[in-house]
């Protein structure tokens, strides 16, 4: 079947299987910035924005994105330099496998609650696991991004 959506601000169409997950469609079409970690919607590495809300694309059927506006880490960091700068400046990463998901969730928090306090940041970002950092620099990156808005 055919999927048509807006991806990172551009029209996007692909032939997909009815059971294809959005993460697979993105990655097969060279958008490999979106990572697959746990595959069961828990770790958040595959987070993308669908109609301005964060979703775990590893458990999000691609057909559900029909007609939707989808943004991945590639698109968000290229249109919002404050988002990229916050993570680069505060080094909100180590191995980087969770980073695209953290970046997308951070952007989503900026839409939902730009004045979030420390506790609200940690609550919102709890769906994006990181095994490396202990979360201090990631939380600081999010804080820096929200402050820039």
């Amino acid at each position: 079947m055919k999927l048509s959506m807006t991806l990172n601000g551009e029209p996007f169409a692909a032939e997909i299987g009815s059971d294809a997950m959005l993460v697979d469609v993105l990655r097969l079409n060279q958008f490999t910035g979106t990572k697959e970690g746990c595959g069961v919607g828990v770790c958040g590495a595959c987070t993308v924005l669908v109609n301005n809300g964060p979703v775990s694309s590893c458990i999000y059927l691609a057909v559900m994105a029909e007609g939707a506006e989808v943004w991945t880490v590639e698109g968000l960091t290229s249109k919002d330099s404050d988002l990229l700068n916050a993570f680069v400046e505060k080094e909100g990463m180590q191995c980087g496998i969770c980073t695209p998901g953290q970046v997308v969730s951070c952007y989503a928090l900026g839409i939902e609650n730009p004045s979030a306090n420390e506790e609200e940041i940690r609550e919102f970002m709890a769906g994006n696991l990181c095994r490396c950092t202990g979360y201090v620099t990631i939380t600081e990156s999010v804080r820096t991004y929200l402050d820039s808005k």
Partner: protein
Amino acid sequence: MSRVDAESKATGRSRYVADISLPNMVYAAVARSTSAHAKIKKIDTSVAEACPGVIGVFTAKDISQILYGRNLIDTPILANEKVRFIGERVAAVVANSRKEAEDAAAMIEIDYEPLEAVYTAREAIKEGAPVIHPDTLSYKGSIAKPENSPNMIWLGHKGDKLAAELALETSAFTVEHSYRAHGVHQGYLEPQACIADFQSPENVRIWLTNKAPYRVRNMVGDCLGIEPENIVLQPITLGGDFGGKGSPQDAPLCTALSQKVGRPVKMVLHYSEDLTAGNPRHAVDLDIRLGADAEGNLTAAMVIGYLNAGAYGSFTPSAKGPAGATQLSSYRVPAFYSESNRVYTNTVPRGNMRAPGASQGTFAIESAMDELAHKIGMDPIEFRRKNLLVEGDKDTDGEHWIEHRGHEVLDAALAAFTPVEAPPGWLYGRGMSVYSRHTTSAASTSIRITPVDDGCIRVETPLIETGTGSHTVLRQLLADQLGMPSAKIEVVGVATDELPRDAGAGGSRVTAGLATVVDVAAKAWMNRLRDEPIVAEVDGDSGVHIGSYIVQIAQVAVDPDTGQFKILEFMNAIDVAAIINPLAHQMQIDGGALMGIGCATLENLDEQQGQVWNANLGEYKLSSARDAPPFKTVLVPGGIGIGTANVKNIGESTTPPVGACLANAIFDATKRRIRDLPLTAEKIYEAMRG
């Protein structure tokens, strides 16, 4: 300047193994054993072969049956005649897509004749236990002894048993307890993945989620009969390691399959496969006896460890390892005896995890130290202070170290301590734990410096950046040594055929190793006659072994009605020398401690009859940002480090002492001792009721 890889990671441009596609590439998936211990009676691949997109289905008889491993060579590429754990690779499918390969693999029918299985180390060495490897003694690299149980990979002793027993019998105070440190997974968020491209026996390329590419080259070469130099490991970005990305995993299989089908073969594990067939840490049962005299001086210690090594022993660096499980590294012990029983069982094969063995061993030792202090009637802090090693002391291995800064770190921790209030109605507790990690100056790596335009240089390294910031540290060390701005230095990861060597990230030695090779490189660069590339390499040990003490203090609150507990504050006080990159150093401290907290409180590789029951990250819980407690760090500068860069180890320092630190704090709050990890609300509740 930020990390060398900050922008590429934050934009999603960094390329991990799963992100790479080669022309003409096909996909592999495996059928895994559903039996913990069985003879394979029959494998029917006919249905799988007829599935759409399938290129071939392969079993052990189709490929090399030479075993592989790191030191102990005991692991088959595909199970041959027998399976030894649930999750073992039995047959492989190569197909045009990952989905087709996986669908076909599910159609492979395997008939088993079940054998009696054994799941714990203590059970497996009992007389009459089922024998998992009948030919243990004949394996290459085996250090098993015929007089021991056939399931015993290695039985090691240290010290004098009789002297320790005698000292314990005559001690004024003794404690004797059993502790259990459970199995946990390293929890990297990038599942294991491999691409192998076998062009000819002279030309094999591999992309692998692995931090030690030269070692993989040798292991794959040995089991497939390929000259290691003809296998080229490609540079990759690694999505977390923590000790779990040091084994070749599926590289031998993918290489064999690529040879069979004549095309590049890619295999990416699902996380559930990683949890059931990766290489998690050893579960360790420990029997501890400690003794002290009337004044609170330690008199003797006996540490007997039973290490569950799982079905294969090939993934730990030494068949004798992981040594940390039975070490007692921080105290003066006149009579010491330790015994390490490393044992095959019908469970997931074990590997290394951040400070191998030390998290398990330190949980037991530092819990027992607290228990002995209470028995004597001493403050556990003062008891530790009295027994910490000082200048001139030798440790339980008989080694003298260049310095002992345990007391300075302990004093700094106490000076920085401020109590945090527990919520109303909750019980407050404070716990402490001490660990000292020693490291060597052994360095084996190489770099090439090439001049490029505008006074810039390009630095090539085969060292895999595991996420710690090693490539950034390399740039900083070079900038310092060459007196040039970091902005003029580009660091590039290169394949194994570009440079002669790299031992791989591990042993908390990466920064020290890089500093050593940068010293050599800087001299060669300054003395070069023409503007041409220089290669610098180091391979050896300057003989300097240094140590670093860490003291942790946890403050907890326990809900007396439910057993639920919160960490109010977690302090890491650490002995340091020079710090090259303060932020990367801090992330090792925080990340290591949070990993320890997760392992001690949330994570548990829940194996029942050899089956991992929680084989997904929904049930196998890793700490989230919400679970992380407030951290406090106390750095105690002035220590002696390695080399001209004067650096100490940090990567493996903060994980091992966490379990005991929390158990001691929970005891302080509840007067109940939990001796088996993980520390859960249920256990605390039961203990308070009991």
